[in-house]
């Protein structure tokens, strides 16, 4: 546990020791703030009544996009950078297990995302001051966003173990995530049960109920499985050095 904490702390400090972290934060907050503002304007202009379906839904669906854009850029360095610098060689000879490396890195990126989410709540707070609202639905929305981001981070981390090139790691992550997004869009895919299975697997279809303020056990389970699957994939990829011999 101590090793996990040490890795997480080091990585987290590394994020905030470099300008990229601040650039990514700024991008996230600017885009999400803009989406929030335009969604509120939309809500007011069209005189919608129900916050859940008229505002929060759009806000969180928009936030999803920003998260999709930013998180792969956060996770791309996790292992790719270590490979490139060669520091991973030392990590592999220290008395720590591979799963501890994975967990430590994961927690660092996750901590970064938490910071981002907390800052992304600022527009909500401002809105609340002028127009108090029920806190439940947006809380569910943020929980959904957190789970979605956690899944993104696991996926990005696994991609980062594959290469020493950060850009490649980010592109692979985008590829996987966008695939999980678009795979239900193909209505011509054939029989209905295939569509049903795809819906079951689709990353974003499990997000929509959070966006409208409801928490479903199936969705929680889906995100947990998605995250665990990619963490495990990352672990196996790290262990593949046994036969890949890559340093």
């Amino acid at each position, binding site marked *: 546990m*101590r*090793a996990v*904490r*040490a*890795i997480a702390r*080091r990585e987290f*400090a*590394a994020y905030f*020791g*470099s300008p990229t972290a601040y650039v990514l934060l700024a991008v996230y907050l600017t885009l999400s703030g803009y989406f929030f503002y335009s969604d509120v304007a939309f809500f007011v202009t069209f005189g919608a009544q129900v916050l859940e379906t008229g505002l929060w839904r759009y806000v969180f669906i928009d936030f999803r996009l920003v998260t999709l854009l930013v998180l792969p850029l956060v996770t791309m360095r996790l292992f790719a950078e270590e490979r490139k*610098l*060669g*520091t991973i*060689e*030392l*990590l*592999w*000879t*220290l*008395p*720590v*297990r591979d799963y501890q490396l994975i967990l430590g890195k994961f927690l660092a990126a996750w901590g970064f995302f938490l910071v981002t989410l907390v800052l992304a709540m600022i527009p909500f707070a401002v809105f609340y001051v002028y127009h108090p609202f029920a806190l439940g639905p947006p809380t569910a929305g943020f929980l959904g966003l957190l789970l979605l981001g956690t899944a993104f981070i696991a996926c990005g981390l696994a991609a980062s173990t594959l290469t020493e090139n950060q850009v490649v790691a980010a592109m692979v992550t985008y590829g996987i995530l966008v695939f999980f997004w678009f795979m239900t869009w193909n209505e011509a895919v054939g029989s209905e049960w295939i569509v049903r299975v795809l819906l079951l697997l689709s990353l974003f279809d499990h997000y929509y109920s959070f966006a409208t303020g409801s928490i479903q056990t199936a969705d929680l389970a889906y995100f947990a499985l998605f995250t665990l699957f990619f963490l495990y994939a990352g672990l196996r990829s790290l262990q593949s*050095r*046994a036969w890949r*011999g890559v*340093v």
Partner: protein
Amino acid sequence: MGSPRSITASGAGEICAEHLQKAFGATIAVRDVSFEVARGEVIGFLGPNGAGKSTTLRMITGVFPPSSGRCTIAGHDVVREAIHARSAVGYLPERTSLYGDMAVEDYLRFVADMKQIPHREVARAVGRSMAAAGIEHVAHRLVGNLSKGYRQRVGIAQAVLGDPPVLILDEPTSGLDPEQVSEIRALIRALGDEKRTVVLSTHILPEVEMICSRVIILAGGRILAVDEPANLERRLRPFREYSVRLAMPTPDVLAKIGALPHVAEVASRERDPLSVPHSSAADGTEVIVRVEHGFDMRREIAATAVGSEAGLIELRPVVMTLEEIFLALVGGEGDRRANGGASRSGPPAAPAGEVH
């Protein structure tokens, strides 16, 4: 050091490697390497580029497992009991890669956490490792801003952090300036004196002679020889050689030197085209005096040369270069049939007991 140890690992040594083999795809980087290192021994891996030194050290330290064969450190299998084995090892990789964005002391604290050094002892352990590597005065500088030599020292500090009984250093002096090279060598020797087991790799022969009690010669992924550095030369060259420069090498004085006890031969230096531009009349003429091993005849040779007014300019031992050693080792194995020995300094290489 007594006679060279048997290289068949019996499990008694601090490091026991048995039939280590590593293949990267079709290339076999290391093949059937077995050796044993006793506690407190300082052993050197000597070999040209691509010999498989780093690959061997990486298998020992657990960077990647061997394709076949096994290795134990302090009795722990490096694959199956990886955590135990790694706890006993400090490792300096060939490419000293550190996190440039951390201060030296913070980095060492991070390593201390990773090595599970008890919380109470971290500050002291970090202080001691910095003292050992001589980097206390840069404790608060960013690693990325240090010179290469100092980064190397930080690498050594993290290796010795927590006093692991085994140190594995991959080319610890490469890329440093001469002053730092000698400082790092002194540091390694001091570490060896503390009853630590040290394994280092190098392609510099004198380095091995200076630091190591035993040397493993590696080429093409195989062990060519295992021996004490002094024995190596004795085994590969029938005589010890001295280079003697005389202003006027008369046949008379050469005969007198040749008649000294234990002197086997006095020969003129074969023309070495590279040395021509450096020799001038003032440099005199160089002759090679071959003396039986185990006898130091320098004083007698000098006295004879001076007594006969031949004008002694220089007297120095001729050490074998790495190239000569490899030629002799390889020649002792394959080329002997072809050209009667590849050693350029005389008769074929002496039969080498442990040459593989």
